[in-house]
């Protein structure tokens, strides 16, 4: 049997070469604002429908402001890490549109399960960026209340949160908050994850559970082309959004550097979920312009020309050009945003440096809702042990004083 025959038996040859050589994201990419700042139409998705031109402009200006401030958070935190104030920082540089576009499509009752890089989404949910900075500084592992902002804690074990999102969505179903038609009630859940994460068993199990129960969850994958040093080809040889087809729900690839398109596509996917139509996979096709984290050195594994290419598609720049060219912002607005960013930067620097360190004894109290006797014992023994040093120090200093007195 020749390979030709075999190939045709199983349909077209599916093995593809490097899909990323097509760095534009290919023909399936949903785009509404080009890198050059031109609005374009798309057959299925549109931005601004049902809004007045003023409302629409205000929304886009808001995106612009969000993205500038988010980038500023990122830049400040990176600098703080360089100055030894943070243990590490996971940069989002280049992914602002993917995060602001999707984050702004959320309603208050929706719930987000993030990775460790969703600083822009956190911003949209109303978290104080200092709460993110505290985690990377090492004063806690996330100080926000997930229920206050409907924004879960950062999750570091790759993919684990996609199952949490699916389970939460099953809870939303059980609460009867799907498909009622009440826009303040019907809720959706978003699971953020990366291209690398798509290889984890947990993520694929999340697809299976979500499909099986038709859960109101949106799988929002930021394909930033890299999982640390591994290119997307290592994880999938076909465009990632097509993964969803294998599980029986729709997938779509959107230009993740286009805030309008990301907003429109996410909004539609969320709406599907809220209406009871089940899960959707959204691949936000973007690029991690920075290092994986502040400890990473991307020059070891990727070409600088790649980065240069992607700089031309900067998510903030294209919105700025669009707003300016169409007279939707004036210089005053742009300057105000810059000033706000300055102020924010200052606040973060000062806030970070003045963060109190945690106390070791508090660690013992956080393990259980109902403390155990043995852990309470460990706590009090350790407190005694620590006290013995203070006693010793006190004794020593008294001793020193006595000595001093004695030597008088």
């Amino acid at each position, binding site marked *: 049997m020749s390979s030709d025959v075999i190939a045709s038996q199983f349909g077209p040859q599916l093995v593809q070469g490097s899909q990323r050589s097509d760095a534009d994201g290919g023909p399936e990419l949903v785009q509404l604002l080009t890198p050059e700042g031109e609005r374009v139409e798309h057959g299925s998705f549109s931005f601004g429908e049902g809004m007045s031109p003023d409302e629409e402009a205000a929304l886009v200006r808001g995106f612009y402001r969000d993205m500038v401030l988010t980038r500023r958070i990122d830049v400040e935190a990176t600098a703080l890490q360089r100055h030894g104030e943070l243990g590490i920082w996971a940069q989002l540089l280049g992914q602002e549109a993917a995060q602001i576009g999707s984050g702004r499509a959320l309603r208050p009752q929706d719930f987000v399960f993030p990775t460790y890089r969703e600083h822009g989404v956190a911003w949209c949910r109303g978290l104080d960026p200092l709460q993110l900075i505290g985690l990377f500084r090492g004063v806690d592992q996330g100080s926000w209340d997930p229920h206050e902002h409907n924004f879960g804690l950062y999750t570091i074990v790759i993919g684990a949160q996609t199952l949490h999102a699916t*389970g939460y969505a099953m809870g939303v179903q059980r*609460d009867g908050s799907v498909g009622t038609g009440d826009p303040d009630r019907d809720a959706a859940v978003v699971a953020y994850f990366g291209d690398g994460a798509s290889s984890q068993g947990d993520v694929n*199990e999340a697809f299976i559970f979500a499909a099986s129960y038709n859960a109101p969850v949106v799988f929002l994958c930021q394909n930033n082309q890299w999982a640390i040093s591994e290119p997307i080809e290592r994880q999938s040889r076909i465009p990632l959004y097509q993964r969803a087809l294998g599980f029986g729900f729709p997938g779509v690839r959107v230009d993740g550097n286009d805030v309008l398109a990301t907003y429109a596509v996410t909004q539609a996917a969320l709406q599907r979920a809220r209406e009871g139509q089940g899960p959707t996979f959204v691949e936000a096709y973007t690029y991690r312009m920075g290092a994986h984290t502040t400890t990473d050195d991307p020059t070891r594994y990727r070409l600088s020309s790649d980065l240069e290419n992607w700089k031309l598609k900067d998510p903030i720049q294209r919105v700025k050009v669009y707003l300016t060219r169409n007279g939707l912002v004036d210089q005053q607005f742009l300057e105000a945003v810059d000033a706000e960013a300055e102020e924010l930067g200052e606040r973060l620097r000062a806030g970070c440096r003045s963060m109190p360190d945690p106390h070791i004894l508090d660690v013992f109290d956080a*393990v259980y809702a109902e403390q155990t006797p*043995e852990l309470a014992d460990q706590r009090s023994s350790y407190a005694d042990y620590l006290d013995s040093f203070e006693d010793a120090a006190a004794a020593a200093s008294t001793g020193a004083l006595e000595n001093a007195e004695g030597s008088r």
Partner: protein
Amino acid sequence: MTKMTLAKALNAGLRRAMEDDAKVLIMGEDVGKLGGVFRITDGLQKDFGEDRVIDSPLAESGIIGTAVGLAIRGYRPVCEIQFDGFVYPAYDQIVSQVAKLHFRSQGKVRMPMVIRIPFGGGIGAVEHHSESPEAQFAHTPGLKVVVCSNPIDGYWMIQQAIAADDPVIFLEPKRQYHADKAEIDEAADSSAVYPLFASRVVRAGNELTLLAYGPMVKVCLASAEAAAGEGRSIEVIDLRTLSPLDMGLVLDSVRRTGRAVVAHEAHVNLGIGAELAARITEECFYSLEAPVLRVGGFDTPYPPARVEEEWLPDLDRVLDAVDRSLAF
């Protein structure tokens, strides 16, 4: 008062927990129409519906991971792992998520989840159906680990575990499911029953303390009985809780008897017996007449069924350890 096996008692306890709190959900493989391979959830889906008794896709990490999300949403999931050996695909979700979310969030997130695991050997099964994974969970801060050994405890402990606001690994000795019946007073005041995180003296004695849990409680009681025939007075403690350990009761007993033997089916190496031996020795150094001895599964994988009776600690091996301790 109703006479029930452990299997039936667990079923009744689950039913009552579901009646008491609409947030209680049951999840797992085959827990619906089939009622679980051991029938512990028999009839519950019929009465509480598919939304509360959820047959899951065949994926343990998925079961525990979605249960985490349900717990965050305010539910109290009770997850069934079909057999001990199949908990490992969910191990990551259990030790890195379930165990840590309260700590990570400094208490802002609670994980009132119960993970039920039929465990232990002696049923003539094929590989992976006779494991004793308790030490691994007890070693993990953030989890609580309890084991029932009889129908009455089964009935009450499962309800207490579900009511607890911390994640509880709930181990059920599968070879006891249908072994014995006991009278259960379902009308008893639930707030007055023996507490969940407490061990219990199940036979008084003064020459040696025998520590056991789950399937080994019955074996140890029989050993104590046999020893009594030879004039020896052995105290038997049903540990019931493995994390936290209820050391107060254990130490009181050992200080009285001066000798301790721990028995479990799990591998001796780094089993619960190791921790008990270390703690007892530290706390009762001058009261001990003999080192704490351990009887347990050997440090081999669980063997083929035709040889499991010789692999599992039995009356004779427990007595042998008792004799060695008394002879020390």
